[in-house]
């Protein structure tokens, strides 16, 4: 199996096997655009996101180590202690853990509900946790997160433009980024997952992951295309495509290695702890890592190719390569004449030898 992946890597590296990330860029662009539009429409059609209590405001109680996990027990307890409470939701979020959410309570009501829940579920004081969130809290978090987003994108665009010395890479990286974030948030809305501040931070972290992935692939593209105009056997687009393919095994490995720990937090978090920081963060990351990897391969890199392919020098070079392929140009003998084993270099298949 490992050998198969290594073999797969070998084929990708030599170009024997190749996925048309660049050749089919129009298809990917249309597909990505459709996904992004759909992802943006989902929340509209569903009438908004499923927002966590941090955005709605209210009081929340968590009761752990309960024997009976019937929500009715909690609902009755809340009703007896605080008849004024509205919007009461009692859910069993993990084995032996109940969560009760309701409208904002006063201090006295909070104490009353806490002790009522404690008695109803027959647990000790230490097992009841309460929290209160003001209605503006979530908005604060969101505003901060948006600021973070703006700063991050600006800094990263500047940094990438400087590092890669071309704004086109920066722009295409951002295209991949937008795809990743919008799609992830759309998926959240589609499945009806609760959006909490932790999830929002998860979305922000996805930005970092997605860009990280893009930087690695772009670095290889830059390396492969550094002497783009010297050879005559590959067009610029093909060189980009080869670079993407050559980093494909790394992309797969990175995603898997990234998903393994995140998946184990998600698994343990949702199974043992229910909703909360761990689950919300890891769920956003889990979806985002997958979407982010796809975003680099199918959006960022093809967009870059698309942005570059119209350049005059590249069009000219591509024409040259075409001519060369049709045999209209013969070898310019800069190098020593060589008799090649067979056909073109990239198709070479000689015995593999350790040197």
């Amino acid at each position, binding site marked *: *199996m490992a050998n198969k992946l290594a073999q797969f890597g070998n084929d990708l590296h030599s170009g024997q096997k190749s996925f048309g990330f660049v050749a089919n860029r129009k298809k990917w662009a249309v597909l990505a655009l459709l996904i992004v539009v759909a992802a943006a429409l989902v929340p509209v059609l569903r009438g908004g996101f499923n927002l966590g209590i941090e955005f709605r405001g209210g009081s929340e109680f968590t009761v752990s180590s309960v024997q009976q996990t019937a929500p009715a027990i909690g609902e009755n307890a809340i009703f007896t202690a605080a008849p004024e409470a509205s919007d009461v939701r009692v859910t069993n979020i993990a084995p032996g853990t109940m969560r009760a959410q309701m409208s904002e309570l006063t201090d006295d009501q909070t104490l009353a509900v806490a002790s009522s829940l404690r008695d109803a579920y027959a647990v000790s004081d230490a097992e009841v946790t309460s929290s209160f*969130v003001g209605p503006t809290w979530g908005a604060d978090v969101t505003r901060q997160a948006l600021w973070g987003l703006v700063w991050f994108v600006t800094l990263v665009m500047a940094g990438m433009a400087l590092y890669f010395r071309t704004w086109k890479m920066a722009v295409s990286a951002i295209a991949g980024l937008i795809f990743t974030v919008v799609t992830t948030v759309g998926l959240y809305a589609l499945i009806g997952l609760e959006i909490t501040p932790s999830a929002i931070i998860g979305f922000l972290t996805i930005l970092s992951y997605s860009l990280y992935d893009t930087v690695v692939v772009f670095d290889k593209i830059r390396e492969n295309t550094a002497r783009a105009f010297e050879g005559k056997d590959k067009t610029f687009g093909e060189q980009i495509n080869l670079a993407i393919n050559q980093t494909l095994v790394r992309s797969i490995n990175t995603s898997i290695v990234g998903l393994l720990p995140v998946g184990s937090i998600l698994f343990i978090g949702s199974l043992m702890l229910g909703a909360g920081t761990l689950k919300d963060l890891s769920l956003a990351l889990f979806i985002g890592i997958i979407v982010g990897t796809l975003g680099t391969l199918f959006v960022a890199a093809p967009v870059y190719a698309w942005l570059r392919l119209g350049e005059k020098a590249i069009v000219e070079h591509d024409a040259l390569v075409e001519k060369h392929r049709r045999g209209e140009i013969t070898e310019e003998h800069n190098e020593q004449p060589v008799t090649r084993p067979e056909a073109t270099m990239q198709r070479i298949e000689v015995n593999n030898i350790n040197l």
Partner: protein
Amino acid sequence: MTRKLSHARNTLVGMFLVIAAVVGGIFATTASGGSWSPKLALDLSGGTQLILAPQVSGSDSQEVTEEQLEQAVDIIRQRVDGSGVAEAEVTTQSGQNVVVSLPGALDKQTRDLIQASAQMSFRSVLQAGAPTAVAEESRLSEDQLPQPAGEPENGSDPNWISADLYRQFEALDCAAVANEDAEAQNPENAIVACATDGTEKYILGPVELNGTDIKNASYGQVQSAQGFATGQWGVNIEFTDTAREVFRDITTRMVGIGATTPGSPRSRFAILLDGKVLSSPSSKAIIADGRAQITGNFTEESAKALSEQLKYGALPISFAIQSEQQISATLGTDQLKWGLLAGLIGLVLVFIYSIFQYRLVGLVNIFSIIVAAIFSLALIVLLGNLMNYRLSLAGVAGLIVSIGLMADSFIVYFERIRDEIRSGRTIAAAIDHGWQRAQRTILASKAVNLLAAVVLYLASVGNVRGFAFTLGLTAISDLVVTYLLIHPLIVLLGNTSYFKNGGRFSGMDPVALGATPLYRGAGRVRTPDEAPLESAAERRRAARLAAEQEALEADKMKAGGNRGE
């Protein structure tokens, strides 16, 4: 080549030294009360966390400046400390909110105390004394107690002092005052109060001016009449137009008292913040223009502090609770336990995967992740001791998530080496070239990680901040480990005969990697015969390679037929 090896060895020593320095740092900080385990945040250890948003009384539009917020935090910290809650932490967040974390549950009294707005006020001093309680035997007897002769006429009138108030003053012990109830200090009445620095206690008249009467405050060197700096520090207060006249009256009165009875405490006025006296200067001149200068034994620092407090006083801030969380210690322990288990599972999965993918070299990956994890944890412990950094649940999540990112540096590097082997380089050369190219990628991508962590840290509110922190921290540890551990280890391994020759399980097996032969020009391809084999091991290897090669070719023929490529 040997130079490279010794360089690699030196680098490993460097890694050792870096770790030794961190461990040494922890050891040094344990001497002053630090611990060997990370400090835990409230969501893991249990307790209450309040997030407060400052609100300017009376107006919604006024923004709270960072300095004012810092003042507010100081005040809340004093109040919480004063209420007897141990180990409370008060911090600002994003320059906008105040976060109060305390162990255990929060009682209503402490909660109200925290929310209350601090008021600055000016009162005249009626009497001053040593900050300790007067001993029982030396207290005034009943008949000696002051008896007001009539209604007080102004703020400095001794008629404010009633027998009751005097008894209170005698009993007041500034060292033992747990919690000054600022709210209970009626502005209409005379009160007793302590100095913030605990050097004096006072009987004070009713409030005559408020913090809102201050237009501005600054500090600077006191200038002589000739306009030369005297080297003394002073605090300048400017009152608003409406307060100017009141202040003129006060100073007129006090200068009068000072003239008749020099040194009388009644020639002083007290500036109170949150029920404590910040400063009680005596008035030496009648100030008619509303610009007062307080001089005394100020250092630059204390002058600055007072002027900032005065500025804060001009804008009384109260606090609205944004979010409040009470976490039971059991829940916290549970979360930590499951979080750690999740981390362990993640770690083991990554280990299995890297062995599966990278064979023996995968061990380098595993080893480096372990070292990076220990290094990150050590940094967290050190930061806990130095800066009171506390690990939260989100922080634990950050640590776990970063396992994947740490492994990725290795993957980027090692895939690069494999690519170089595939292009036909020798293993030693592949390691060299692979590193040259991979390190740039690693640096660029880590920079993205670090940048994201910093932005996240600055942008995030609430517990999730810990996530950004550990993410950034591990990005740094990862860089350190990649440069000081992974690379030298790979170089050293690459020099052992097993790896040099691409042993079957080395992960660098050129056959498995389908190395194409080095194209040597002139139509010749280097074959094994050309390179003289140096050792018996290499000859055996060559024989095995030839056999494997044949098998592989045969496989390919078959597979090629099926694949139809």
